[in-house]
C-alpha cells in the first residue's frame, strides 16, 4: 500500500491534480481508515495518464474516454483468454 504523500512523490503529481483525477474517477484509490491508500497499479495508471496527457496530447475530455475503452479492452482480453483456455481444456484427447 502506498500512502497519499508517497504516491504524489512517486507519480510526480501535485495534490490538486490528484484530486481532479480522483474526482474524474481516472484513479480509484482504496480508502483505509478515512485516508487514501494507493496500489502499484494506481501508480502505473497515473504514469499512463501522464503519458497520454503530456506526451500524446490527449486532452482532458478525451482522457476519460481513452481510459474507459482501455479498461473495456482489458476485460475483453481477459474474457477471451478464459474462453480460449476453457476451449483448450474441453478439446477431445487425440486417442
Amino acid at each position, binding site marked *: 500500500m502506498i500512502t497519499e504523500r508517497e504516491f504524489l512523490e512517486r507519480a510526480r503529481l501535485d495534490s490538486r491534480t490528484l484530486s481532479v483525477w480522483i474526482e474524474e474517477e481516472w484513479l480509484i484509490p*482504496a480508502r483505509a481508515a478515512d485516508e487514501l*491508500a494507493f496500489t502499484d497499479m494506481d501508480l*502505473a495508471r497515473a504514469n499512463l495518464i501522464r503519458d497520454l496527457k503530456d506526451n500524446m496530447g490527449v486532452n482532458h475530455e478525451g482522457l476519460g474516454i481513452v481510459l474507459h475503452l482501455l479498461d473495456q479492452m482489458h476485460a475483453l482480453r481477459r474474457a477471451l483468454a478464459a474462453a480460449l483456455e476453457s476451449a483448450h481444456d474441453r478439446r477431445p484427447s487425440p486417442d
Partner: protein
Amino acid sequence: MKDPYEILGIAKTASAEEIRTAYRKLAKKLHPDLNPGDKQAEERFKEVAGANDLLSDQEKRRRFDAGEIDASGAERAPPNARYYRDYAAEGGHPYEGQSAYGDFAQGDDLFAELLRRSAEQARRRPGADLHYELPIDFLDAVNGATNTITLPQGGTLDVTIPAGVEDGQTLRLRGKGAPSPGEGQPGDALVQIVVKPHRYFTREGADILLDLPISVKEAALGAEVRTPTTTGSVMLKIPKRSNTGDMLRLRGKGVKTRGRTGDELVKLKVMMPTEVEPELDAFLADWKPAGTYDPRKEM
C-alpha cells in the same frame, strides 16, 4: 545503437516542432498500454522515447550532432518500471470494465457462462494484505501485551502480542488488511515484530540470560541478593566462594513458549568496589593465603 533521427523518421535539420510531432505520432502508436498484446511494443517505445529525450533537449542534440555523445549517452531509464497493462491483465481491480461484454454474458452458452464466472470471481476477490513493522519492548515480547499501531494512512490497529513472541516473527490479523475492490473479504494485516534490546536481559531460545554483578564480600561469603527476572525480582542464593562466570539457574523464570518454559540463567560477575576501602586494602596487604591458589596457573 540506432540513429535517433532515423528512429523518429525525421531529417537532421528537423525543427523542435517536427521532432515533437514525430514523437507524438510514434508514441500514440507504440505506447505499451495501447498495445497490450504486443510484447515488442515496449522495446520500440523505449527506443522512441530515448530518441525524443536526446533530440528534444537542445544541448544534448547539439552535442550529439557534434559527435560529443552517442545515442546511448542519452538513453534514459525506462519511464515506467511496469506498465498499466501488466496490472490490468489480472481481474478484480476497481478499473475493471465488464460492460464491454455484458450482452454476451446474457446467453446460456459456454462463453456466456465463462464470462459470468470470471465476473463473479473478480467481484469476490479479497483485499490485499498490508504489511507493518511493530517494535516492541523486550519484556512485552516475553510476557505478552496489547499494543496499538498507528497506521501510516491514519487510524490505529490493536495488536495482541502473545507471550514468548520472537524477534522477526509475523503476526497475522485476519480481515485487518485492505478492503476488497469488489465484495470479497478484506485482506489481512501482517505485523512483523521487532524486539527492542533490554538493558540487561538477553534471550536465547526459551532461556533468559542475565549478567549479575556481585560484591567481593558476597562472592567470598555467600549471600542472598535481589535478582531481577522478567516477572519481577526474586531472592537468589549466591553460594560461598562464587566466581565471575559461575552460572546459577532460576528454574521456570524463562520464556513460556509452546514447547517448554525456559529458565533464567544468571552469570555472576564479581566487582571490586570503585570507592576507596582502606580496611580492605590493609587486610589484603597483611593477608597471607593459606593455600597455593594461582589464578594464572593454566597460562
